[in-house]
């Protein structure tokens, strides 16, 4: 069995304001093993973003703890790669220089720069390396954003609503594209999303959070969809019923 990579244990979080305190998360626990692609879905205000911020090490949980590869997370770590909702490519840097931003920051050696060149070649970005971000389509920019995250070689990837800023058609195409790259690179992923079908298309497992204060309501092992490519999952007989089940668990009223 693959080793345990991420452990979220009894995490709870309370925001303090001068007027009141707001409980965002209550006793959230789950684990992710190496090589897994897990999605976290939940209704608005369920604490998804808070949980992501805690896992990223940008905020300390009020209760509980998060461990990555056995080490407790108390601050941002380069072992976790982060892909935000928007690509956030810097307009004053060309694509190559955007992709190698993390290498510059982490003062990585030539080996990593060679790897960056290889990845750019492998994923069709070599010819656009000299271009500025505004010369690229939304899909290409998102691909650059992922490669920027991958070149520093983090063991674990956090995708924060990584496709939601794109229009529907681009979103589907880009999510499949990025899923392929992640699988090729054998990365472990936690995708935070509000899109149930996206989570079912891409994941091995879907964790459903309740409305705020968020807690784990259900964990769906997608064994019926295992080894089926994302686009073909859409046509699988179990797909519709899974969406229905998760939708019911989200307890959203119109």
């Amino acid at each position: 069995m693959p080793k345990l990579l991420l452990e979220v244990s009894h995490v709870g979080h309370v925001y303090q304001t001068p007027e009141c305190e707001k409980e965002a998360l209550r006793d959230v626990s789950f684990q992710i093993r190496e090589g897994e692609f897990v999605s976290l879905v939940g209704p608005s205000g369920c604490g998804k973003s808070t949980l992501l911020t805690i896992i990223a090490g940008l905020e300390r949980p009020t209760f509980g703890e998060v461990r990555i590869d056995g080490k407790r997370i108390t601050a941002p770590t380069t072992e976790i790669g982060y892909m935000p909702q928007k690509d956030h490519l810097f307009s004053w840097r060309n694509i190559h220089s955007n992709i190698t931003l993390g290498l510059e920051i982490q003062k990585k050696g030539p080996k990593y720069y060679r790897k960056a060149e290889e990845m750019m070649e492998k994923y069709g970005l070599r010819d656009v390396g000299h271009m500025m971000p505004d010369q690229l389509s939304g899909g290409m920019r998102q691909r650059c954003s992922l490669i920027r995250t991958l070149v520093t070689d983090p063991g674990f990837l956090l995708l924060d609503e990584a496709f939601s800023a794109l229009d529907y058609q681009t979103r589907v195409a880009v999510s499949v594209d990025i899923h392929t790259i992640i699988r090729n690179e054998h990365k472990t992923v936690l995708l935070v999303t509000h899109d149930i079908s996206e989570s079912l298309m891409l994941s091995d497992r879907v964790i459903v959070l309740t409305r705020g204060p968020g807690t784990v309501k259900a964990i769906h092992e997608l064994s019926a969809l295992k080894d089926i490519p994302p686009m073909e999952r859409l046509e699988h007989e179990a797909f519709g019923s899974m969406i229905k089940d998760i939708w019911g668990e989200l307890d959203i009223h119109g």
Partner: protein
Amino acid sequence: MDEFDDAAKRELRSKYLHKRKQSVLGIRLARIAVLILFIVLWEVLTDNGILNPFVFSSPSRILAALKDLSVSGELWKHIGTSVLETVSGFVSGTILGILIAVVLWWSPTVSKVLDPYLVVLNALPKTALGPIFIVCIGTGAGAIIAMTLAISLIVTILNVLNGFHHTDAEKVKLMKMLGANRLQIFQKLVLPANLSTIVNALKINIGLSWVGVITGEFLVSKAGLGYLIVYGSQVFKMDLVMTSVAVLAVCAMMMHAGIVLLEKATRKRFALS
């Protein structure tokens, strides 16, 4: 067919560029025409006694005064004094303002502590500080540069700091996740993201520096364009006042043009929108 399409596209492009060029040229010509019209009207009205040339001077009288001042060498002395004071105030105000903004961005606690003082200093009419500068620094160029600093410094700090604080929080988060420390966040994100803000601060500062210098020269000076204006009004030589104002306008315009060139170079170099 493709060749025809290309030719048609080239023609369309050429027509578009020609039209655009003509439009830009038209605006430039209109601007020059407004200036010429203003000068001619001024000359005609004063020549015919509709406007009192003793009070309003006239373009021909200004030219004559300019010639006299130029021949005697007085003009260059006064321009040199004011330009030197303005550049000194502008450069020191800008550098000091940006440095203080960096310190305040670096330490949110210091920023919070100093915030009300900055607000009060910004609201304070800086000319009120003039007599204090004269008493403390003396009646030389130092007091005038201090006046210029007082006028431009707080505005620079507030504008640049505001830009620094409004750097996209998601980009800051991304930098932290890539392992960046505070210095790297500043060097690789905050500073380049705020080059436009800094250039805008320079544009505002150049105008404010002139305000500071002229106000300072009104209060205490023996040379400079501000001194010429005050002296001209005291002896009721309005030709001298108007000439000084015209020279001042040209100097301010040239410095502003320098900043605009710098802005263009910065935008090109850093691909800013």
